[in-house]
């Protein structure tokens, strides 16, 4: 297993290298002058040219890439022309905000998706199965930002049950930053009240992001349950009079969840880059919003850094998914050992 993980990580380096070349090139051929963007309308042409030189924009593409790669290997992702801070400082601020949100969304989609999927599969063709199918189609068809606006309108504006923006109320002082995860940092600081408020603020945006994945994962789980229910070993357990709950949790769930685990992994990485519209609706100071803002301003260093982070996330999450599947499915372990 260690050898397998090491090999996968090694392969990821080449993938990320190729990705960085591609996005480096694309970002530079996009229309727009990042130096002018940084200095504004009232800078002279001489000032713009000086900054272009400083950013190596007057050099050839391979030379620009060399300077960038050299900095990257020293841990320097450059500076953002929008925030004027090192990109690493920006990422340190924005990534935890989005990670906390998508972890919460993943948790919601996992719990609700699995429960509905298992029930729909076990009680297939019942009214519950039909209802969950209908709701799933609705969930898959509705974009997450539409769900976000709807939830905001109903629960925040009309009913006043949930907060509308940000990670905590504007007037509330946040706890000292340790991990960047507000809930965790609040608990570490001994402030469960702030943690509770942070959870409240997470609910609506997380549900908005989770809806489509609940629908998706629910359907996949349902199909797996239906398929595995027809397997001989399940019939044997039923004939032997083993309790339904034991059959479901001990014998049915584990093999049925394997396809869902793969999807969950992909969804997690997908959310990191595509939470933008939900972050916009809820004024969530997260990574996706930061990334899109960088695209609009042709913030070259940020664009490349963001794509690399997303690529790295995909690589790592897929690796984790494969490891988890290996644990869940012993046949894969045996195959890998060459048995």
């Amino acid at each position, binding site marked *: 297993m260690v050898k397998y993980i090491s090999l996968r990580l090694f392969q990821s380096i080449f993938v990320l290298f190729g990705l960085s070349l591609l996005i480096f090139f694309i970002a530079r051929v*996009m*229309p*727009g*002058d*990042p130096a*002018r*963007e940084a*200095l*504004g*309308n*009232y*800078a*002279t*042409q001489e*000032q*713009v040219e*000086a*900054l272009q030189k*400083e950013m190596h924009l007057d050099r050839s593409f391979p030379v620009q890439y060399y300077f960038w790669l050299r900095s990257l290997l020293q841990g320097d992702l450059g500076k953002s022309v*929008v*925030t*004027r*801070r090192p990109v690493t400082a*920006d990422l340190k*601020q*924005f990534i935890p905000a989005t990670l906390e949100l998508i972890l919460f969304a993943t*948790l919601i989609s996992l719990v609700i998706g699995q429960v509905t999927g298992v029930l729909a599969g076990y009680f297939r063709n019942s009214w519950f199965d039909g209802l969950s199918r209908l709701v799933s189609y609705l969930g898959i068809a509705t974009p997450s930002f539409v769900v976000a606006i709807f939830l*905001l309108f109903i629960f*925040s*504006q009309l009913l006043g049950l949930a907060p*509308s*923006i*940000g990670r905590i*109320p*504007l*007037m*509330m002082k946040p706890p000292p930053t340790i991990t960047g995860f507000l*809930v965790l940092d609040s608990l570490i600081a001994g402030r*469960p*009240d702030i*943690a*509770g*408020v*942070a*959870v*409240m603020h997470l*609910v609506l945006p997380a549900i908005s992001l989770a809806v489509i994945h609940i629908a998706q994962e629910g359907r996949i789980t349902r199909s797996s349950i239906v398929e595995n229910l027809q397997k001989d070993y399940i019939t044997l357990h039923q004939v032997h009079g083993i309790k339904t709950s034991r059959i479901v949790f001990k014998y049915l769930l584990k093999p049925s969840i394997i396809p869902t685990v793969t999807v969950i992994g992909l969804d997690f990485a997908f959310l990191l880059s595509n939470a933008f519209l939900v972050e*916009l*609706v809820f*004024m969530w*100071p997260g990574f996706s*919003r*930061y990334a899109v*803002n960088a695209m*609009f*301003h*042709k913030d070259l260093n940020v664009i490349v850094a963001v794509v690399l982070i997303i690529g790295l996330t995909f690589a790592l999450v897929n690796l984790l998914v494969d490891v988890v599947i290996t644990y869940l499915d012993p046949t894969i372990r045996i195959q890998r050992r060459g048995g």
Partner: protein
Amino acid sequence: MVMVLFVIGFCSVLGAVDNVAVLNAMPGILTDPAQAWDWYDMQVLYNLYDPLVYPTPEGSIRPHVALSWEPVDGDLAHWKFTIMAGYLFHDGTELTAEDVAWSMNRIKAMGGGGVMGDVTATATDFYTVDFVLGVPNAVFPETLTQFFILNEDLLMENLADGDYGENGDYGNAWLQENDAGSGPYMMTHNSPGDRLDAARFEEYFLGWPGTDNPDEVPIDQLIFKEESQFSTLLLLLKSGGLDVECDGGWSLPQLEEIDKTEGLRLNYVWSENTTVSINTTRSPTDDEHFRKAILYAYDYEAVVEPYLPFGAGEGGTYLSRMPGFVPIEPQPRKKDLDKARAELALSKYADKLDEIPPIIAHFCAGLQNEEDIFLQLQADLDELGIKVEVAGPPWSQYGSEAATAEGTPHLTIWVFAPQYPTPDFYTYGMYHSPNWIYSAHWYFGDKEILQLLEQTRATLKFEDRIPLYEQVQPMIASHALAFFPYERQKAFPSQAYLIGPFEVTEMVGPNVNMRNWRINLTLKEELRG
């Protein structure tokens, strides 16, 4: 555990903090005056810092940190400024001429300060600063309305590694999250991309005068929340999550909705001049008669009428409220296809309209009112048999296109509030070469106009410049270098319990200087509970 935390959060009672105003800001506030250049940076800077001089509602300047100023021996390239004694920074130290000179030289070293030009500053004594300019400029003092003074000692104690030799980064990194100003508010927290918090500086040198209503008090805390989506901002205004919206770029339906919403007010503050620049180096807009045909064919009434209830009016070379404004052709501001055809008949393209390429008209992406202006033009020019292609690239592309005459489309829209309070911003700034507003017509190069503009910058007294501005406007208009669909007063929606601004200037920043506003806490409690 999640459910438990949710319940704890729901039950948490937050202490009411009434005396707070939440404003919006564009994402990416720059708190370093050497880097800040756009209006949304200025609206924050006017709260945290003090400029050397302050703009007036009449389109001039008045003493602020600087008490007086004059050219040395009449030399407009050499200015002496005397600053106020006893002026304090937020840390209690005195603001001296050394701070002023250092702040100016810092801006220059860091590549900022475009509107001020090439300037070197020296403190000649504790309260006197000498500014030496690269080029003589009678308008130099007016450009200092956006020159903000920093605490030199504090920044020099907090240098990081940077590109400026022994000056490191000039304290740039430290300044992003710390306060070094003297303004009415002190930065207490900054999370770039998220929010900036500031607290009232009670010892501010101008004090905090009251109003006739004892319920109206100065605002103690400001929160600038970085958000630019109008749909979200509207929701926040209605729910009380936002107190003042400071962009003013609302669409017509949104303005109408705000106007009807109880508890909200529209405040008409700074004006913007909507200018459609015409590229005089590209065929067919290189022909003056062709350009005039565009001006006469345009249906001004159709675009301005919906905005009339919201402070729109006839546009011109500069804002109508500025001194010396002169209405320019076409008069009246109505579509006149007969005049348009007459001009077209005089142009060199009269017989070959079928052969000319389409007019390329670009506006900045996301700005509906700019797109509407060009869609109207497209329809109007179609009646003359002239094709117009309208597109809205994102700002980064839009800005870099307009950096050169060759790259600029035939038509581009620029909506500017002045960066400093005088007509010079719109006249010399936009029509003299070389200049720093790349959207302009410096490449047109009419000698008479250039000489007149240079004369404005050689005329010391503000009142003596006004007749020169009155002359130059029709001269610029006679060449049809641009047309002006309308000027609009920007409307800042605010909660009804926020009263202000008590003084309105044509520049953005001073209007969002929250010392210029008060909060009525009694009314806030009634409206928001």
